[in-house]
Each structure stands twice: as structure tokens, then as C-alpha cells.
């Protein structure tokens, strides 16, 4: 402990940095250097994924854009899928911070709360639907590393649904005998369908929300107390 590997944040040098070359690592800050590379790769990848899509972006381009070598991309990430996973994770962190703030104050019954929660998702994600789809597709990628988080494992979303259902049980509009995980899975499948509508049929957030609202209504028939 207390040795020279203590991490010193170098004034956010990694964020938005445009320097042509990575600065050489000062003695004992290999970890910091690695973090800076990681940050730069993620920033470059986010930009490229947004402009030319996931499939259309190569690791080589990401490296060039981030001003790091292809080798150092691979010492930081196992695959392009893992970079995508991290890009999406960063994005979702913002969304979930907002949901954490909003969810406790939502009015109405369980169905209304679920509808609002998904509408917030669609409004947030609609600009990046193709990327989100690539994110889902990457879940089935052969070389998926253990660290990557496929869409089905979006535990934050699942957790929010479970909390909403638990609240519904307490308030009497959700059947206590129903398996909450099964409701979660059905909602996730419905959610994925709304995505396909957006990516393939060009549906906007309003259209996605409308389809999702109908599906939530139908699933709610199944969790209503008898």
C-alpha cells in the first residue's frame, strides 16, 4: 500500500484531449496511462459509431481517431464489441441517473409508471437506435468477452421494473402470486420489438412509445390481481 502506483488524476487530460500523441507515462502511473488510453478509445469509438455505425467502424479507425496504436486498443479492450458495450454503458449511466431521480415521483398506477419509464427510454435512445441494435446483435457475437454487457443483461432496467412491480404489489394493482421475473422478460421482449420498429421501419420515439403502451397494457392483463 501507499506505493508509487497511487493514481493521480492528471487534471482530466484524457477528456477531450486533442494532443497528437499520447504523453509518455510518468514512472509509476501505468494505471493512469491505461485509463487515459481507455478514455480516448471510448470517446473516439463513440464518435465513429455514431457517424458510421458499428459495423462500418474498424478497430484500426478507432485507434487512428484516438491517436493510439492498434496494439494499445487491444491491450485495453478484448474486442470491438467490448468497446461498444462500454460506450453504451456510459450513455446508459446518464439515463439511469435521470430515472433514479424521476421514478419515485411518478404518479398513477403500475401500468402508467411502466409506460412512462419506457417512454423516457425511447426519448433518450431514439437518436442511437441503430447503435443500440448493434449492441444487441453484439450480445450474440462469438467472441463476446465476459466483461461485455449484452442488452438482455441490462440489470438496471430489470431492477427498475422489479421495483415498480413490487410497489404495485404493495399498492394492490399487481398480483402478488405472479413471477416478477417473467413480467420483466416479457417487457424486455416487447422493448426489443419497439427497437426493431425504429431501426427497420424508421419509427420515431412517439411510434415506439405507442406500440410499447399497447404491449404493456396487454402484459398488465396478465399481472392484474384476480
Amino acid at each position, binding site marked *: 500500500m501507499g506505493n508509487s502506483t497511487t493514481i493521480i488524476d492528471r487534471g482530466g487530460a484524457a477528456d477531450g484531449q486533442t494532443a497528437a500523441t499520447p504523453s509518455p507515462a510518468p514512472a509509476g502511473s501505468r494505471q493512469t496511462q491505461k485509463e487515459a488510453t481507455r478514455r480516448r478509445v471510448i470517446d473516439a469509438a463513440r464518435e465513429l459509431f455514431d457517424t458510421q455505425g458499428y459495423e462500418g467502424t474498424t478497430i484500426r479507425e478507432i485507434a487512428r481517431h484516438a491517436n493510439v496504436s492498434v496494439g494499445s486498443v487491444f491491450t485495453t479492450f478484448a474486442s470491438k464489441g467490448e468497446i461498444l458495450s462500454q460506450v453504451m454503458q456510459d450513455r446508459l449511466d446518464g439515463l439511469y441517473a435521470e430515472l433514479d431521480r424521476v421514478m419515485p415521483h411518478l404518479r398513477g398506477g403500475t401500468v402508467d409508471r411502466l409506460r412512462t419509464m419506457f417512454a423516457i427510454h425511447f426519448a433518450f435512445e431514439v437518436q442511437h437506435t441503430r447503435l443500440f441494435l448493434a449492441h*444487441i446483435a453484439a450480445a*450474440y457475437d462469438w467472441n463476446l468477452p465476459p466483461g461485455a454487457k449484452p442488452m438482455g443483461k441490462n440489470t438496471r432496467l430489470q431492477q427498475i421494473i422489479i421495483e415498480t412491480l413490487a410497489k404495485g404489489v404493495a399498492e394492490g394493482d399487481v398480483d402478488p402470486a405472479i413471477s416478477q421475473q417473467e413480467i420483466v422478460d416479457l417487457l424486455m421482449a416487447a422493448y426489443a*420489438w419497439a427497437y426493431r420498429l425504429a431501426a427497420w421501419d424508421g419509427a420515431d420515439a412517439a411510434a415506439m412509445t405507442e406500440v410499447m403502451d399497447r404491449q404493456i397494457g*396487454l402484459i398488465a*392483463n396478465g399481472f392484474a390481481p384476480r
Partner: protein
Amino acid sequence: MKHIAPIQAAEDAPMKAPTRRALAKQQTRAKVLSAARRLFSEQGYEGATIRDIAAAAGMSTGAVFANFTDKSDLFREIMLTDMSALAEAMSSAAAGAASADQAMLKMFMAGYAFYQTQLPLARAAFSVGWSPQDGPALRNAPPVQILHELLLAELNRAAGRGEIDADANLELRAQMLFDAYLSNYPQAIFGGWNLQALEARSRDQIAILLAGARRR
């Protein structure tokens, strides 16, 4: 010019050149498809290259391209062949079911049983199915639509029997049932779920999705 029906031609002169060439072409396609099926299962969709597939089939990449436009064409052909077989399996599984719930469950299980021994291929199919480029073509392909229509047909039959309400959004329910059916594959692929576990989950999902449609 006299046109000879293919069967008659085959009977009259089974060794005629055109037939033999057609046969050879068919054999080449079958060889490529079987090599491709194996490689997609072993290496996934992205991992398997046309070059590898050609080598495994013992032919040149040119010969592969003479039969298939590209890798996604090759993969789609494999999938669609399977889907057609699956549609038949599902259809006969549902025949004679006593209720809509039972018909749905039997169809789900016919699907899981069909893919039980080829989960890696199913995984590749999901990867392609979700891809922005190739997804729509696979997802909207007629044999996939047939699976969806089979579910809808069973719901309509149940409505005809008076078991469920004909006005209860049956189209949407069929779509959601199909999505629920697909949503369990990741459990089988990544979670190692066996058929019993899939059956228990499917039964509950079907009950939830049909709850609002039942006649009281």
C-alpha cells in the same frame, strides 16, 4: 416443340446431360450448405468466412460464389430451410391441442426441441437477426412470417371455439407470443436451460399473454 414433363424426362432418359448438370449443381449447393452449416455452428456468423467454407466443402471460393451471392445469402438459405422444417414441426405439434394455451406451448416446445442440438446455429441466427443490415431480410422472410402466422391461426381457432375473445388484439398477441418464444433462446444458449426449464417458463409466459383474452 414438345415439352417433356420433368418426371417423364427422368423416366425416359435419366442420364441426359441437362439433368446430370442440374444434379451436379444441386450436389455442389448441398455440399456448400453442409460445410457452411458446420462452420457457422463452430465459428459463428462473423467468424466463418466464404474462404473457409469453400475449403471445408473442398471447392474454390469461385464455385461457392457461383451458387450464392454472398455469405448472408448462404446463411439465409440455411435458416430458411430450417424454418420451413420447423414450421411443419410446430404445425403438427399444435394439431389436436385442447386449448390455446396448450397449442402455444406445444409450438414453443417444438421449436426449442428443434434447436436443442444446434444452439450455436441459433446463436448465429440471433446475431444476424439483430444486425442492422441483414436483420430485416431474415426477420421478414416468408418462412419466419409463417411461424408467426401459425401462432395467430391457433389464436383464431381458439376464438372460433369461443375460448378466447376474437376482438382481444389477437394480431398483437400473436406477435408478442412469437417474441416471447424467441426471448427464451438466450436462456438456452447462454444459461444452459434444458427443455423442462424452457417449458415451465413458456407456460407462464403464455398464460400471462393470454390472460386478457380469455372469455369469462
